[in-house]
């Protein structure tokens, strides 16, 4: 091979790898990302049942009830709207009523209950998931102090 051919081989190979990677990334960004919503968004925007979303807010007071086995039901609120959540599994250590949480899962068609498979509450006593904090600030119910967050 001539020098030019060698170079072309290398460049061509490189471009094709990068091209494939770009396609993969574009495809994944279409399909594999999860949008974050607040309970108000859910009510106002009518999330399509079955779509995976993240839902964040405060655990509503007196909403936690344990069902059979590992079933837990609770509600997440941003003080305007409240969404009922069903979850089976272990709740995080810092899961408490009034605490900010993020749940991930989807709505079951024909039902208003959000079925979560993941519940996140961060490992810091002052923690408020950032998305939740932003939403609550918009709603004007944020009481955390900026300096010590």
């Amino acid at each position, binding site marked *: 091979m001539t020098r030019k051919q060698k170079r072309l081989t290398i460049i061509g190979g490189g471009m094709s790898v990068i091209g494939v990677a770009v396609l993969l990334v574009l495809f994944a960004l279409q399909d594999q990302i999860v949008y974050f919503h607040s309970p108000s968004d859910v009510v106002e925007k009518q999330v399509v049942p079955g779509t995976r979303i993240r839902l964040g807010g405060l655990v509503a007071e007196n909403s936690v009830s344990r069902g059979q086995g590992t079933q837990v039901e609770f509600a997440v609120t941003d003080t305007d709207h409240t969404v009922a959540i069903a979850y089976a599994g272990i709740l995080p*250590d810092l899961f408490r009523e009034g605490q900010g949480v993020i749940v991930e899962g989807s709505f079951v068609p024909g039902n208003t209950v959000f079925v979560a498979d993941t519940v996140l509450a961060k*490992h810091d006593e002052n923690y408020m998931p950032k998305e939740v904090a932003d939403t609550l600030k918009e709603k004007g119910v944020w009481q955390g102090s900026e300096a010590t967050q």
Partner: protein
Amino acid sequence: MIVELGHYALIMALATSLIQSVLPLAGARIRDNGLMAVAAPAAITSFLLILLAFIALTVSYVTSDFSVQNVWENSHSLKPLIYKFSGVWGNHEGSMLLWILILVFFSALVAMFGSNLPASLKANVLAVQAWITSAFLFFVLLTSNPFNRLNPAPLEGRDLNPILQDIGLAIHPPLLYLGYVGFSICFSFAVAALIDGRIDAAWARWVRPWTLAAWTTLTAGIAMGSYWAYYELGWGGWWFWDPVENASFMPWLAGTALLHSALVMEKREALKIWTILLAIMTFSLSLLGTFLVRSGVLTSVHAFATDPLRGIFILCILIVFIGGAFTLFALRAQTLSPGGLFAPVSKEGALVLNNLFLTTAMATVLIGTLYPLVLEAVTGAKISVGPPFFNLTFGPVMIPLLLAVPFGPLLAWKRGDIWAVTQRLYLAAGVSLLVALAVTYFATGAPVLAGIGIGIGVWLIMGSLTDIALRAGIGNASPSVMWRRLIGLPRSAFGGALAHFGLGISVVGIVAVTAFSTELVANVAPGGKIQSGPFTLEFKGLKPNSGPNYSELQGAFSVSRDGENIAEIVSAKRVYTARRMPTTEAGIMTTGPNQLYVALGDETPGGGTVVRVWWKPWVTFIWFGAIIMSVGGVVSLFDRRLRIGAPARRKAGAAIAEPTT
């Protein structure tokens, strides 16, 4: 008084670094040897000053001096001594001080052992190091000063976040920082070469051991961090594709690429410009990682407390250094002479392929990490990019790379014969294929991909063994000759093979645990039984217990296999007194490479307890493989040729000094 002396020393170090940033650079520019010579003592002095500051802070922690705000916020007089030490860097301010300490330590090493570097290169490298040092000293002094005082002093501290009270914390950040900051030397060398407009042959010889050392510690640091999160968070996962994890993984990917391209540069003087670019990129990603972790722009399961002002400050540092370096690169890269030629099928070609895939993989991780930020800034939509994204993008990019790994070491430099190499790998390929088929056949119900994945892991392991066997001359030499050759092999050959071997082990662990682990959530009452993997767990009930600074509820399980009692697992829900913070202490039983992982949940009204049990076959291989990779790095680092570095000055070409008299 030691506290204030430490504070003074820190400010003094800033003054010294400022001088070190300017005078040597000016000296190299106007060819003034006096000015250039300031660099070395300035670097050593900065190191001593910052060491003093660090010692002062450590003394404050050990003696529980709560008049130091940082100590008050992160320590407690009753904290065990080891956590008083590790608490020094268990918080933002202290960890930044450690970051700088490591940075100046590396500068001091260059200053002390750089006598065989051309004078202007050494002066430039140390000046660039001093820029970084100055920037971060400004950052620490202005936004995160660990020496802020409280008067009157509180009587008791607020304690270290309990999740950080762990031996993992004592080791993990320093290792990670050694890696991150180690790449700063490569960066400084790259920028110095661009300033000078030439790359000396000694350049690659210096950069390669630094890259290797940084890469080794970063590998170990990431592995530690992963294991720490695995047992401390109680979620049973070992990698979450979390922004903070990605922040350490991206420099690792770029650093791995740099390691391989520096090899080409040293041996063949090719890929010079690319290596320079990679060196800049790797450290830029380390800086980006620091920014992501410190600024709080991304939420993470591991983040420290964050502050927007700090974020803006680090962002400025980031823009100045990364922007500056890339601008310099754009301006000067073409002045560097191009390197040697090679055919696409050759060891160089294989290493280019490695670089191509690694940087592409790194780019996918970068996009996945930054995309949510960009999208939120542009459209306001909040999204999270989780494991599915990375599995779909990072995975497919890595698979061809892993398949290609065993070919690389066997190919000849400059012009290789791919068919000859393939023939030599027949055995390795055969074994891998058999294992893949066996896994697919026997592990009924497991995805087909599991067989392929484990086959790839075995392929890597066999490939590295083949490499060593062929170097020893297997098949065409007598055993004694083979032995002699094996002994005579350069350590770097073993190092490289070990690293690839470890990679294979990790791949096997990752695939096995992904495909075969089982997870079970159950609500059990005392006496209740759970089946997990080949084991039966019997819940013995909860009992209270208390430690030095916490109280806990322990849940005990007796584990039996085929009716025979073999072990007891204790998992606990712990509450740390000072912060009223609950944590889950996972109970882990290791049998061979497998682990049984039990996390305790809440008690339920019926007297039961929610329990989560994972059976994780081969899981320890993940970290075990990473350790082997690090060991490979260490072995390589002790290669005689690397230790020599650039040789001592030849007498004839030495500097001629003429007394003025």
